[in-house]
């Protein structure tokens, strides 16, 4: 088994790159899967569409979810995740530019595990990503695997 996957749901290529750079800077070596919109994220997670053939046993240890996404919004993605048994316990960290109260409330209501606002200052951003990696990839204990792959298989 390889390193756990980080699923980054982000439509902005700059933010994607910066996130990648920040992770690299923080020596987070996990495989980074990027979905560029909500649909792609869901397709990937549920092995549908273009990802129908991927190994369903590969599930992320964390999902970094932007909210403002093309096609399907981040909150809708979250909602679908939480509504699906296989994905409902997946740690989801909302990583977004928005600090709108409604987004915060809605995010937590839908079962987000954390909410991080992306700072403009890259130093701060890097710092945030570092802490995020330490926390979620190192410290945080994931829920036990319910061997979905066996089922799927």
């Amino acid at each position, binding site marked *: 088994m390889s390193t756990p996957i980080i699923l980054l749901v982000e439509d902005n290529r*700059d933010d994607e790159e910066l996130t990648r750079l920040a992770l690299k800077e923080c020596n987070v070596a996990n495989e980074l899967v990027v979905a560029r919109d909500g649909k792609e994220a869901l397709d990937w997670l549920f092995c549908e569409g273009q990802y129908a053939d991927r190994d369903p046993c590969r599930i992320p240890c964390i999902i970094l979810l932007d909210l403002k996404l093309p096609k399907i919004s981040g909150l809708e993605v979250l909602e679908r995740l939480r509504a699906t048994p296989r994905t409902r316990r997946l740690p989801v960290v909302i990583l977004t*530019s928005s600090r709108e109260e409604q987004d915060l409330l809605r995010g937590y209501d839908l079962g987000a595990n954390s909410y991080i606002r992306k700072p403009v200052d*890259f130093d701060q951003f890097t710092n945030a990503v570092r802490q995020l990696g330490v926390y979620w990839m190192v410290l945080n204990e994931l829920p036990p695997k319910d061997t979905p792959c066996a089922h799927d298989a």
Partner: protein
Amino acid sequence: MATFPDDAAALTARLRECARQLADMGVAIDPELPPDALLVRLREAVLADLTRCREQVAAARRAEDALRASEARYRALFTNMTEAFALGEAIFDAAGRPVNFRFMEINDAFCGQTGLTRDVVGMPITEVLPQVESSWVERYGTVALTGEPVRFTDYNRDTDRYYDVYCYRPEPGKFAILFRDVTRERHIEEALRESEKRLKRAQEIAHLGSWELDLAANRLTWSDEVYRIFGLRPQEFSATYEAFLARIHPDDRAAVDAAYTDSVREGLDGYEIEHRVVRKDTGEIRYVQEKCRHERAADGSVIRSLGMVLDITERKQAEEALRESEARFRQLADAMPQLVWTAEPDGRVDYYNQRRQEYAGITPTERDSYEWGPVLHPDDLEATVEAWQRALATGETYQIEHRVRMASGGYRWHLSRGVPVRNAKGRIVKWYGTATDIEDVKTAQQELEQLTASLEQRVQERTAQLQAALARFEGLLESAPDGIVIVDASGVITLVNSQLERLTGYQRDDILGKPVEMLIPERFRPVHVQHRAGYMTAPRTRPMGVGLDLYLRCKDGREVPVEISLSPFTTPEGLLVMASIRDITARKQAEEEITRLNTALRRNVEQLSVTNKELEAFSYSVSHDLRAPLRGIDGFSKILLAEYSGQLDETARDYLRRVRVAAQRMGRLIDDMLNLSRIGRREMQPAPVDVSALAAEVLAELRQAEPERAVTVIIAPEMTAVGDANLLRIVLENLLGNAWKFTGGRADARIEMGTLEEAGQTVYYIRDNGAGFDMAFADKLFTPFQRLHSEEEFSGTGIGLAIVQRIIARHGGRVWAEGAEGKGATFYFTVGEMVEEAA
């Protein structure tokens, strides 16, 4: 004898007359002879007679001489005698009846007593005294004929005298009269007779009899009336003293007898006595008054007694009646509760009843004086006397109220009244008066007056109250903005105000007393009558016709939309209902306008809502999308600096750093802008806030952020406010944060927060001694992103005070600042009433 040739017939007649006369004298001549023969006969006869006469004259002359002496004597007597004397001859007619006479001789006294002169001698008496009564001629003629003397008294018209005449015949055919003028005696006599007659009559009328006792002749005479008084027929018998005594009442007889005999014996002039007599004819008892005067001779013996008897029965009876009447009057007067008095026409009081003595305690001397003074209150005396004098002077009723003294010494009010009693001629003969105790009446009257006065006052007060109430009511009615109609239970209009007149165009008189339906459009009238009847059964204050459009019908037929409220009230006249009628034309229009505006507003709100949503979407996208590029700019710049530093010179690196600073600043500006917009949109939750504690918290945080700074902080305790705690915290964070920031350059930094009262409102203030500001820019302080200091001096975006102002405004308060450059600043704010905002 003269002849009248022209009147032969008359002459002839005269001749024949002579012949007849001669025949009477014994000379026989036929009077029927022819005139010539008759004349001859007559002449012969006359001549024969003449001859005879001559012989007789010669014989007589002798006797005459003797007589002459005697006659001279008698003539002197005749001439000088005081009695009138005349010698006359009678003239007879052919039948020998005396028809005339003439005087032949009269004396001086004759002339004196008859007023005739001697010229009358020889003239027929009918010429002298043309009116002579025939009785004179007859009497004298008779004497001249018969020779029988007569004496008589008779009246002569011509001389208007009475004469007492003695007549005799000195010789045949002649007469002599001796008389005197008795006119005066005659008049006296007649007067006397008349007087006696009157006396008699008077005695009859007066029942006054007279009597005379002639003692010398021992003869008693009674006048007729005496007989009558005694019940006898006048002169029935000769009066005697015994007869007199017999008629006297047995009980009085001795006294009367004694009176008479005593007066005679004791030499008195007379006596007077009243006694009773018993009438002989009827047995009736009469009262008489007897008066007697004695005439005495020189020796004192009574010659004659003259007396009178006056029947005084009527007077006696009248006196008795009067006495009884008087006694009754006195009893009555004494029995009366009033003081009773009588007075003479001159005002002298001659009688008071017993009451006065008992009442006023008048002593006999005072009473006898019959004066006002002692019994009247001194203050009333003058008015009383004046009133009495006026009554006496005018004969009008005397009336006055005055105080009369009581025996006990006090005074009581009396009403004194006096009325005059007049005789048949209208002359006042007496005053009758009373004085009635009216003290109690007066007291009662005064009490009544006081009562009346107080009652009147109460009535006046009540009236004033009522008038005021009425005025208030009318004022209320008239000042009411609505038209008011008051109707009675049967729907008849009893009152309206002027607003209604204006509203309807009717005059009050047009509608008062009419059914209220006249003010209602015709199509609604029948149903209104029903509704009205229904209302009257359960009257209460309520609007009329809820949910219906009501209309008032005006005089000109116009219909005005109205709102009507009904208020019943009960009056003594019954149930009345007041309808307050409001013209809602303007309101209707306003409502329509409001509806229109509301529609417009709703559209605006919808638009605004759309705009808001857009704005929200905008700020959402700002939040997401504007910051992302900045992060890219900053991030990649940082990576360039970090990864490619060696490939860049210092200038390039400096520029990249500047790019990063600018990007980061823009990020902050965006955040602040979003904050500001979020403040405006955030829902407020007002609650009591402990402002002092909040301020202390904020300052503690500031202190924690910069623990190296020494700042003196003074926070007034127990400051509170009602508001949204989170928002108020933001206010304090900004204001205290500013104070903290702008005192950064001072070693003796000082921040003070407290409150003061201004116009009943709590004003919070935060004062520092920091950099301050120029008051010229005070109004710009609260503009978003407005900064008064450079970023180098003091950091910040200039959004803080704009947020403060927005929060304070949302709290209904206001915020303002005072300050001067380098001398610190003071920020004031109030937290007003919480403004409820639409969501």
